[in-house]
């Protein structure tokens, strides 16, 4: 058991081709999720995120490959897997015939949580998720953010080892999104493994210990957000605003910059009222280069009036990997 305990989700060569589909929706991906980490799945619509989550949560049969959740093979023992996993799906699937509270209670009863315990848990979760005062209402009468919270609360009723959330923040307002982020951070602190899909860079960066970038059913990269970004050489930029000063034209300044060893290339961005805006693509860290760049501009006769440091984001990583923007 020892080493297996450290792995919450194991996926190897997972393939899914839907009936009659010309291509694989999931095209042979492998990864592992460590116990206790928040694992982000980042990809555009149609990347295969929901399909992958569907396989891991026993709702979709894979065409090939293997997947284990908490050590349990999801194809060989789906019933066992369902005992240890929790799901917050992309779409509202609350029981509309039941109140919020009853949704939680019945869900727990399906999972064999004893009566006294399920009442105590429902009370605790309803108040944690700010639903206590309306717990007798029907799901239909609630906002998207509240429905999202109900589904998370419901999924926690049987205290799953691994919680899967499929695009939990899509369609939420900023406050509701922040609330959900806090809850996920809290779950992590309590030791729950969280697998979350998103097409939102900021969410992936903020929440995840590690991010898997997928597109067209292929795993393109997998690492901590900071590490993914660190590998992006040449995507660090200095956006400089330069006043002509003694210089006759922008190309002289550009030429001076391009001759610096750390500079990859220089682009003139636009020309708002006399000043030149130059985007300088550099190698390595940007901050130490500030003085050098300012000096070079000055030597070429221009005058640096404003500078902004551009750090690469996951978006840049994605563009670098796929040649397209995420949205």
């Amino acid at each position, binding site marked *: 058991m020892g080493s297996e305990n450290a792995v919450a989700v194991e996926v190897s060569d997972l393939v899914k081709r*839907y009936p009659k589909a010309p291509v694989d929706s999931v095209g042979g991906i492998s990864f592992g999720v460590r116990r206790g980490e928040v694992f982000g799945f980042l990809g555009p619509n149609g990347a295969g995120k929901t*399909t992958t989550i*569907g396989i891991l*949560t*026993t*709702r*979709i*049969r894979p065409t090939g490959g293997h997947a284990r959740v908490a050590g349990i093979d999801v194809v060989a023992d*789906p*019933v*066992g897997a*369902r*005992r240890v996993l929790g*799901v917050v*799906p992309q*779409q*509202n*699937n*609350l*029981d*509309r*015939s*039941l109140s919020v509270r009853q949704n939680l209670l*019945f*869900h727990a*009863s*399906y*999972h*064999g*949580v*004893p009566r*006294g*315990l399920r009442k*105590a*848990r429902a009370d*605790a*979760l309803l*108040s*944690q998720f*700010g639903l206590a005062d309306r717990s007798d209402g029907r799901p239909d009468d609630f906002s998207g953010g509240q429905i999202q919270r109900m589904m998370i609360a*419901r999924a*926690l009723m049987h*205290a799953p080892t691994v919680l899967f959330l499929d695009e939990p923040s899509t369609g939420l307002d900023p*406050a509701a999104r922040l*609330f959900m982020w*806090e809850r996920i951070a*809290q779950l992590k602190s*309590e030791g729950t493994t969280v697998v979350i899909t998103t097409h939102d860079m900021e969410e992936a960066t903020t929440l995840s210990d590690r991010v898997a970038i997928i597109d067209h059913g292929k795993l393109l990269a997998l690492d901590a957000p900071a590490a993914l970004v660190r590998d992006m050489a040449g995507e660090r930029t200095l956006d400089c605003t330069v006043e002509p000063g003694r210089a006759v034209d922008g190309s002289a300044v550009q030429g001076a910059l391009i001759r610096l060893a750390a500079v990859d290339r220089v682009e003139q961005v636009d020309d708002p009222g006399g000043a030149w805006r130059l985007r300088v693509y550099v190698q390595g860290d940007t901050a130490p280069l500030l003085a050098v760049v300012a000096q070079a501009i000055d030597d070429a006769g221009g005058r640096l009036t404003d500078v902004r440091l551009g750090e690469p984001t996951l978006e840049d990583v994605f563009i670098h990997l796929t040649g397209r923007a995420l949205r």
Partner: protein
Amino acid sequence: MTAVDDLEVRALPSGRVRPWGPWQTALAILRRDLFVTGREFPIFLAQVILQPLFLLFVFGKVLTQLGYARPGYAEVLFPGLVALAAVLTGLQSTALPLVIEFSYSNEIEDRLLAPLPIGAVALEKVVIAAMRATIAAAVMFPIGVWLLGSIPWTAGAALGVVVMTLIGAFMGAAMGLVLGTFVAPNRINVTFALVLTPLLFTGSSQYPWPSLSHIRWFQVVCALNPMTYVSEGLRGMLVPDVPHIQTWICFVAAVGACLVLTAIGMVGFLRRAMG
């Protein structure tokens, strides 16, 4: 929304996990359905009773009193309407809810994610629908007494009648499982219209099947409707003097139809449930 920083609130109440099997999960799911049905019981009753009630009133009482139907017709009709109530209520209790839960509300997903085999979820649907259908059929007896004054009854037939009613209820539920899982959601309305009416009138509910020998093609059509065997079985046991299909044939055919329909319905359900 204020962040909850209190550690005592944070930790979820925990407890000892007790041994828990798929059977118990299935019972918990059944309990949910009983809870929902029980809460809407009066509406449910009104829904299922109205059609057989009017059929019994118009055909069994009005037409006989006006002299358009023979005096004994109510006796022939009554067992058929019990069968009709069982089969139709069973069918309606699975077909439409399944279509809605699979396509529009996704509601069934929480149960498909419960720790029990997917097939058990389908069977539970059939069982709860059969329970509702049995209630609908049972209610026909007091209604019959009230409308007609008396209903055909022989003490010796009690057990057989109960069993055949249960079979009819299960049969309807299994038909609903087939319809609800094989028919595309956007066609369910059309399908209901196209299926229900023929089912209603070819199930030997309003006439004894042997009496159709002069309309041979229609008799053959009726023999293909499994409800015929429920109607005829009940008729044979309740009013043995009326010509009827032999009771044992009815039982064999009805049980066979239940098995076949359930098997087909399960295939449909698994197809729908597993992507």
